């Protein structure tokens, strides 16, 4: 498949105005159509496809160079040279030794992109994908935009991360559409898989250690390696903003390290611009669904190994539905930074000397990261099953043990479909098929999870992870609904305060851009007024007649999380102090005890999903952030509760009981 792109005389640069896709006035956003790329694979030879002529469009400023030359450039760079001298002085060893060390780090890290390996993957993945998936749908217009972006500027690909499949899939797509293959930042754990690790390396992966906090040399080699590949336009650089796979299907709060590195060449004037391309990969059924649930429940994650991969081959016999990959609008770092960052702050220090990024830069990178994650969320395709998961989980929590009639389920799903569409969800609901059929076919694909009423934790957490896919659609209205629910009056200011508190509380849990409370509040109000749930005048917020159903639904969206945080609070109150390591097992034990007795204080503990370690960790992080809990040399414990300001946090949480 080839994409024709007109290279206009004026290069079609990124359209600045179209970023901030989540701008709430913009909800009727037009999205591109999808094409199924597997269709052609099913109708023509995989071998011929794997051996096809591959001539991607490259960056216009590219000076072609070999993998070995790339390494030389890194080792000879002023940046690294500076750090090598520094380290050799500090450690009292010769700079040759340190250079040797740097070369070894680079050797361990560097990719060795090889077309033959890519062709091998193209062949085998074609076979695998055709077995596993019904379709892999791509927005081809997005690929055209990407091609243009690759031609004009260095490109950074930022896919969402839900599965190990993600980066293989990305390279597979780019190869198929004759686009430049990326180099991919991968975690070191893959290197453990001997053969596969090397193969991944040859398909463009470079490996970074999970933590290298104080290691100056490692950091220098790593950041210089990434920057050189990016600046020279060697290949698009791909990494996961979320840092790791999200086990819950909620987007994770972004990690800033790599984003900081890739923005640096622009901020320091070494390139005119850099395009950041958010990519949203939505799986109808994740390969790892049960694995994740077990992990969240504390069953340890199996170490990546080649043999483990072969054991996993039984999944080949299952049906994983379809994948949707949406290549978002490229975001220009230049336009992000405009009137935000004063670039002349880099004028007075030679640029090869490593400096700590200023507060201004850090907050800029952080905001950009959130915006990019939201851009990913915006274009995640939601399947009907996601909505069904909402309904089923709420029913389960309400202890309707006898199951749900199909037509009732359908009615509720259709209601939710309409609501989510009004809120701007990117829903793939086949409108030409009767809703009941849509529902039953979704149920059959996920038949393993349908027997949810039995209340098995693994099933519930798997189910929750599907529901979570749509949380970003409802999160702001849900925060507002809960705020209305808890506020003492219907005065707007009071509701806003309550909203602001909840939003702050949950900012480790959901993607809520820092400092955007007012916008989020307005967005939520706008949506609820638009859909006839609320009427808002100067002072007051009023619930309309037909708004109650929506509000009830929205409140219940947040309920499991609220209860989870309460449980964690409750637990911490009863503790004298424990280490961070003990926290998760202890809180889990505590929850299981209360789940079995069925009560916590005077209230029923309804949500099995509070067992999720992800939620527990987020709750703890939030309490620490808010100053309710303090870390003392590795111990966790409440600070004195009578310190008022901080007490309020906990107090407010108890209001919900």
């Amino acid at each position, binding site marked *: 498949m080839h994409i024709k792109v007109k290279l206009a*005389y*004026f290069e079609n*640069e990124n359209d600045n105005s179209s970023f901030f896709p989540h701008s709430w006035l913009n909800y009727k956003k037009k999205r591109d159509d999808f094409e199924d790329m597997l269709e052609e694979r099913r109708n023509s030879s995989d071998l011929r496809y794997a051996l096809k002529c591959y001539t991607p469009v490259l960056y216009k400023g590219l000076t072609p160079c070999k993998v070995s030359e790339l390494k030389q450039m890194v080792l000879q760079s002023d940046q690294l040279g500076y750090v090598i001298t520094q380290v050799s002085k500090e450690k009292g060893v010769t700079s040759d030794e340190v250079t040797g060390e740097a070369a070894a780090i680079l050797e361990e890290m560097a990719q060795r992109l090889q077309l033959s390996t890519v062709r091998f993957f193209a062949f085998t993945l074609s076979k695998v994908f055709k077995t596993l998936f019904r379709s892999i749908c791509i927005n081809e217009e997005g690929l055209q935009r990407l091609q243009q972006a690759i031609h004009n500027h260095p490109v950074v690909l930022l896919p969402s991360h839900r599965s190990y499949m993600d980066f293989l899939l990305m390279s597979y797509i780019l190869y198929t559409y004759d686009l430049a293959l990326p180099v991919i930042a991968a975690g070191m754990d893959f290197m453990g898989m001997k053969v596969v690790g090397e193969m991944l390396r040859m398909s463009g992966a470079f490996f970074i250690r999970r933590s290298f906090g104080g290691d100056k040399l490692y950091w220098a080699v790593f950041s210089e390696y990434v920057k050189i590949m990016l600046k020279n336009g060697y290949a698009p650089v791909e990494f996961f903003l979320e840092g790791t796979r999200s086990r819950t299907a909620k987007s994770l709060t972004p990690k800033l390290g790599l984003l900081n590195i890739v923005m640096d060449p622009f901020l320091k*004037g*070494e390139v*005119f*611009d850099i395009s950041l391309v958010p990519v949203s990969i939505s799986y109808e059924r994740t390969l790892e669904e049960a694995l994740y649930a077990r992990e969240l429940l504390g069953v340890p994650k199996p170490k990546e190994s080649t043999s483990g991969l072969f054991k996993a081959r039984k999944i080949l016999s299952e049906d994983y539905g379809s994948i949707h990959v949406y290549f978002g609008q490229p975001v220009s770092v230049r336009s992000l930074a405009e009137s935000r960052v*004063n*670039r*002349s702050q*880099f*004028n007075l220090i*030679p*640029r090869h000397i490593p400096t700590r990024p200023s507060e201004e830069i850090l907050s800029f990178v952080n905001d950009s990261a959130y915006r990019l994650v939201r851009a990913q969320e915006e274009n995640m395709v939601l399947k009907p099953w996601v909505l069904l998961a909402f309904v089923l989980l709420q029913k389960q929590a309400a202890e309707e043990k006898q199951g749900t009639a199909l037509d009732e389920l359908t009615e509720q799903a259709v209601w939710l479909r309409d609501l989510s569409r009004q809120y701007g969800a990117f829903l793939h609901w086949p409108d030409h098929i009767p809703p009941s059929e849509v529902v039953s076919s979704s149920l059959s694909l996920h038949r393993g999870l349908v027997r949810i009423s039995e209340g098995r934790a693994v099933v519930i957490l798997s189910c929750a992870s599907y529901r979570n896919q749509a949380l970003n659609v409802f999160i702001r209205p849900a925060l507002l609904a809960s705020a209305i629910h808890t506020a003492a009056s219907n005065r707007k200011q009071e509701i806003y305060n309550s909203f602001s508190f909840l939003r702050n509380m949950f900012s480790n849990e959901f993607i809520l851009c820092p400092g955007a409370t007012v916008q989020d509040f307005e967005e939520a109000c706008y949506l609820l007024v638009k859909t006839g749930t609320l009427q808002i005048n100067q002072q007051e917020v009023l619930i309309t007649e037909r708004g109650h159903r929506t509000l009830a639904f929205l409140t219940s969206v947040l309920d499991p999380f609220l209860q989870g945080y309460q449980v964690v609070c409750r637990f911490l109150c009863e503790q004298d102090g424990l280490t961070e390591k003990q926290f998760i097992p202890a809180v889990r034990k505590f929850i299981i005890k209360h789940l079995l007795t069925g009560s916590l204080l005077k209230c029923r503990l309804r949500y099995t999903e509070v067992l999720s370690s992800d939620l527990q960790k987020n709750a703890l992080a939030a309490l620490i952030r808010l100053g309710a809990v303090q870390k003392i040399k590795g111990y966790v414990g409440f600070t004195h509760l009578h310190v008022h300001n901080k007490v309020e946090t906990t107090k407010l949480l108890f209001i919900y009981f």
Partner: protein
Amino acid sequence: MASNSSGSDSSDRQRIAQQRLSVIAGHLQRPVEGNSGILAAECKAQGDKLDVSSERRTVPRRRQEIMKWNGWGYSDSKFLYNKKGQAEFTGKRYRLSGMIIPGLREWMESTFSANLQHKTPAAPILNSSAVQPPTLNEAFLKELKSTGIPFSHDAEDRVFRSHGHCLHEIFALREGKIGRVPDLVVWPNCHNDVVKIVELACKHNVCLIPYGGGTSVSSALECPPEETRSIVSLDTSQMNRILWIDEKNLTAHVEAGIVGQDLERLLNESGYCTGHEPDSMEFSSLGGWVATRASGMKKNIYGNIEDLVVHIKMVTPRGVIEKSCQGPRMSTGPDVHHFIMGSEGTLGVVTEVTMKIRPMPEYQKYGSVVFPNFEMGVACLREVARQRCAPASIRLMDNEQFKFGHALKPQVSSIFTSFLDGLKKFYITKFKGFDPNRLCVATLLFEGDREKVLQHEKQVYDIAAKFGGLAAGEDNGQRGYMLTFVIAYLRDLGMDYYVIGESFETSMPWDRVLDICRNVKARIVRECKDKGVQFPPLSTCRVTQTYDAGACVYFYFAFNYRGLSDPVHVYEQVEHAAREEILANGGSLSHHHGVGKLRKEWMRESISSVGMGMLKSVKDYVDPNNIFGNRNLL
């Protein structure tokens, strides 16, 4: 005056060297007579020895006699398309004069999508009724008359002194639009005249704006529209004598109104030169150089203006400022000369300057080097600077400018020459594998005694070879420098056909040269697109000066404005964005054009608030009533 520079015998070289000097001396065919009788007798007595040459002064009081009122330079010299549609340069003053330039039309058409059918002619004559009647300060005028210093409130005289050569200034004139102009023009003839004028101005609260050569490109000469006082333009052009030459110390004492070409010509007559050759040297004045911190093409040998001046005399509202001796260096607190240099007419009028002079160079030689790409070229210049072996001038043009230079090749007379050209091109692009769309060229000028020049030349070419450079002949080099003088005329041709543009400069550390060149050029292209320019712009640059710690870069930017309702505004927005880009990437606000009013908004960020306060307090002390009210700089 065409030269065949391929000859290698020494007499030929000598001839070429002489020719170079005549670029300076020979731009002009004849001096303008008819200034006699305006000289105030008392000043004449000062320097009768050297004043012999004053009969051949270039700039008359009535500039309109020889110069365009709404374009660059001499009235008789301009580019035009003749009846056959070929570009031609008129007049007799320049090497290019009277020649056909066959490549120019195609270059203009392909670079700008310009079309000879689409003309935008300028208003042919100055309509005096469009000029506001002067606001005269009668008391001032009355006392001025009694001094016998010539003055005028003729509309043409006033309009001529109301502008520099910024695009918006010339564009407005071409459209016959005239804003605030000075109310009166005075022509002091010597230092004492200036003292009298400044005293009267202070006494009667009149605003004075010094005027030298009028080549400003920073809106420095624009009359502040908010100025309500009578504005008097103080034209120094008649203070143009060399008062003495001191051969023992190699200095010359010169009146500040002298223009560059006269200064060099007159000194040459005595066997000396200053070596200060800014691109505007035909018209710009010594006083103007001092007031803006000018830089000359050959600063590598002779230095910039701050290196050249030994002594300055300036008349301020507080009195005359000058040092008591001519010692070559002093440790007497901050150098007061540095308050004067770059003061841009806000503190007073520079009247006399003592400058270093040098014996005229025995030998001059041009040269050029072709590099496979701009990056290699910059690396070579950096190495040359590192080894401190820069020739008198070394400039590196980017690919677009190289092509532009090529388009300006005059018609070659012999088939042999064009055959040779073809062969050279073949050698470079095919045999050496240079990409014609990436290669760039450096032009060189060596000066000194013959032996040393040849040695120096070898050293520089050896360095160039390390960076993939190929020597590309003297002719290319010489043409590069010739273009310096005619490029300003070219803008007028562009403006006849919907093309507007300008150049601006900056300086930066070596490690940022490539980044700034790339980013600023790209920014210009992007801004043009964003602002609705219908055709891709010309966005090009060259490195024009090298220093130990950095370089000076010139950007040229022009576009076809068909389809735009307010092209000048668009132009200004783009230039503004380009300057922001320069500053964001670590370039300076200006290398030698100055700040004027055009770049004032960035002064505080450039020199810090404390720095601004320092300059302000000097202004407040020297000129508390803002007599020198051009409002430049601060």
